[in-house]
């Protein structure tokens, strides 16, 4: 394996893991404080048991998120030293603010976890809110750095030199808002459906039904609302990418030939040789409409771009299809949940099984979405400024480091899953 490929795989692999840990660590505190709030309001012991059980989940995921995040902060430099040498000072600001937000989160978590029966009740609950808010702030700030790679601003690039650096402008890059909005909603959707699915499974198995129904309700409410809002954010993102990174949009849609009134492809198999998409459903004019709000607008095709500036079309196209497909599915599931609140008789075994099936879907969509944006940015590490292959470390043998990370992270994933299963088991055997 080439060094570049190994480095890209290692980065992708560690990010895929970190994203899961980070999202759960960022969203679960909100479930926890809602349950905590209900405990304080109703003094129903079930909510206390649930809060304490979720808090352990938060602690475990916070730490796995924190250590994988520490690893990433080093990996950026270890794998892409040339990138960090130039980009580090420019996009350092969101990272330093993220460090601050993360610090606040760690402090708040310290108060929350160890503050039971020691801190004043309301202040204790409030530290839970701080965990959630600073977690979301960290996420949004980190996305700013990724947004900059897609839409580099805040410097002048003259003769290979980065001059007149303006870190504030770099942080407020045009891609930031759309990406951060999309990611935050995705985190809530994915975590909401995942946690709800786990509790739905317990209800389905008739274990501690009262407790797990309450847990399901809290988690799915967050997930459903986010899933229903997500298409709006998706639309903003699509229009933004059409303007800023037309080649990425073309790859997402496997759209080879520039045309007016471009059709939207649903599904299909990409044939990169003949530049065709087979077995697809084509909706005439829809791509033009979605990208520019006009059925007749011209959408640039891949062939308008030099061959060495195009991403891997098949990967980007399939990932995009998966993301949109699952997003739509979860949107309907979210609506279904809100309707079912009025129709109690819907809560039968099939209903619970449906949500069990949906549990991993949000995260699959979220990872697919990141594959769209990251693979879609290639061959650039900084859009139109620096190529990924020019940023990679000169140290050979990265492939071994990649294997090591695969081994460690897979073990971690298995360990965390196993721990969660043990938590649930103990929860089911508890008195409340």
């Amino acid at each position, binding site marked *: 394996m080439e060094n570049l490929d190994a480095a890209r795989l290692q980065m992708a692999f560690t990010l895929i893991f970190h994203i899961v840990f980070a999202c759960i660590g960022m969203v679960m505190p909100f479930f926890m404080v809602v349950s905590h709030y209900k405990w304080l309001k109703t003094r129903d012991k079930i909510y206390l048991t649930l809060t304490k059980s979720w808090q352990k989940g938060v602690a475990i995921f916070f730490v796995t998120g924190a250590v994988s995040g*520490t690893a990433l902060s080093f990996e950026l430099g270890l794998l892409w030293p040339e990138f960090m040498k130039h980009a580090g000072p420019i996009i350092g600001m969101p990272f330093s603010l993220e460090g601050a937000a993360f610090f606040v989160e760690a402090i708040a978590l310290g108060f929350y976890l160890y503050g039971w029966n020691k801190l004043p009740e309301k202040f204790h609950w409030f530290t839970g809110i701080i965990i959630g808010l600073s977690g979301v702030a960290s996420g949004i700030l980190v996305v700013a750095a990724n947004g900059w790679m897609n839409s580099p601003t805040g410097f002048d690039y003259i003769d290979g030199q980065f001059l007149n650096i303006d870190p504030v402008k770099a942080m407020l890059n045009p891609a930031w808002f759309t990406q951060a909005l999309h990611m935050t909603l995705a985190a809530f959707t994915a975590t909401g459906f995942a946690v709800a699915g786990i509790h739905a499974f317990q209800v389905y198995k008739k274990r501690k039904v009262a407790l797990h129904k309450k847990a399901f309700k809290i988690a799915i409410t967050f997930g459903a609302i986010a899933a229903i809002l997500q298409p709006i954010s998706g639309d903003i993102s699509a229009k933004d990418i059409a303007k800023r990174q037309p080649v990425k949009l073309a790859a997402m849609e496997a759209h080879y030939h520039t045309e007016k009134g471009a059709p939207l492809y649903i599904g299909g198999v990409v044939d990169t040789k003949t530049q065709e998409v087979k077995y697809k459903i084509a909706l005439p004019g829809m791509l033009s409409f979605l990208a520019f709000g006009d059925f007749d607008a011209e959408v640039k095709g891949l062939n308008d771009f030099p061959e060495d500036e195009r991403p891997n079309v098949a990967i980007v196209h399939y990932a995009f299809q998966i993301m949109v497909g699952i997003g739509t599915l979860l949107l309907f599931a979210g609506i279904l949940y809100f309707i079912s609140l009025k129709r109690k008789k819907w809560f039968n075994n099939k209903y619970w099984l449906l949500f069990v099936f949906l549990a991993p879907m949000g995260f699959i969509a979220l990872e697919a979405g990141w594959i769209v944006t990251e693979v879609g940015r290639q061959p650039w590490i900084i859009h139109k400024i620096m190529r990924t292959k020019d940023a990679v470390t000169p140290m050979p043998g990265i492939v071994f480091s990649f294997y090591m990370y695969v081994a460690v992270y897979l073990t971690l994933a298995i360990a965390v899953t196993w721990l969660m299963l043990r938590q649930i088991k*103990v929860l089911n055997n508890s008195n409340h």
Partner: protein
Amino acid sequence: MLYVVLFFLIFSLYLYVVLGGADYGAGIVELFSSEENQKITKKTIYRVMGPVWEANHIWIIILIVILWIAFPAYYNIMVVNLHIPLTIVLLGVTLRGVAFVFRHYDAVIDNSQKLYDGMFKISSLITPIFLGMVFGALIGGKIKIVDDISTLTFYEAFIRPWFNVFSILVGLFFAALCAFLSSVLLIGESEKEVSKIYIRKANIATVIVFIVGLITFIYGYVFEHVFVQDFLQNNYALTFMLLSGGLLIPLRITIRKGRRVLSRFFAGLQVFLILLAALVSHFPDIIVTETSSISLLENIAPDSVIKVLGISLIIGGAIILPGLFHLLKSFKMIKILEQHNNRSI
């Protein structure tokens, strides 16, 4: 503004060495304890470190972020030439953090605890050794700076800078220092009988620190090591070093009299003086390479970047430091409360 950034750089380096160091040291102390004492130590570590250990380790992230933003060229040398030891450090940080949480948050207590404990103790020892080796490599004068790194052999570029006697000695020195810090911390956190164990540990750690330090100097003197020679000729460095050694006397007195806060202050001050001595002997040339030294101050990011970073650090510091202080203080109070209630945990 550059001085604000430099202040935070050294400030977070120091806090990481002291807080993170005490944290690593806890695992080292546990590793070198009898089976019964391990159980006591494990409980004490959880009580003392539990609320704060995550915060302790964020200092290294702050440190690394300041380095890459403000001193990109310096950071570049680190991540390219010291790729291997840094990767091992990361592995250690990951396994250690995970093991700590697993052993305290696993809902079921069974044999898997042994695995978590083992992971925690071993990585607590390995990580600071490699961290020390990285620092040793930066001042060790074995890094070769060339225009095209591919002209060097793999060994010259990626192994020799850190895999040498001097770096390994610095690594051992740092690990012993961690054990020393942690022992002093644990003395104040335990009952009279138990505290004797930690006093003994603190003594052993002090002796090891001293011996490793001495060997480093003798080795450096005999083999004409750049850093050691400069260190020995630098009056500031020597003064700091002697002061740090002299502080052992008030440290011993305060420990004997049971003055917890004061004894920690002296231990912290000792480490600060050691760090200062190591930094000052070449300052501002913080990386010592084979051919020349690389000045921290000559390889800085543009003014606009430093200005914004300085402001962010001041704002961040204003938010974080009071919170952190409050956290440390709250749980000290709680500990006293717990003693009154015969301790529930």
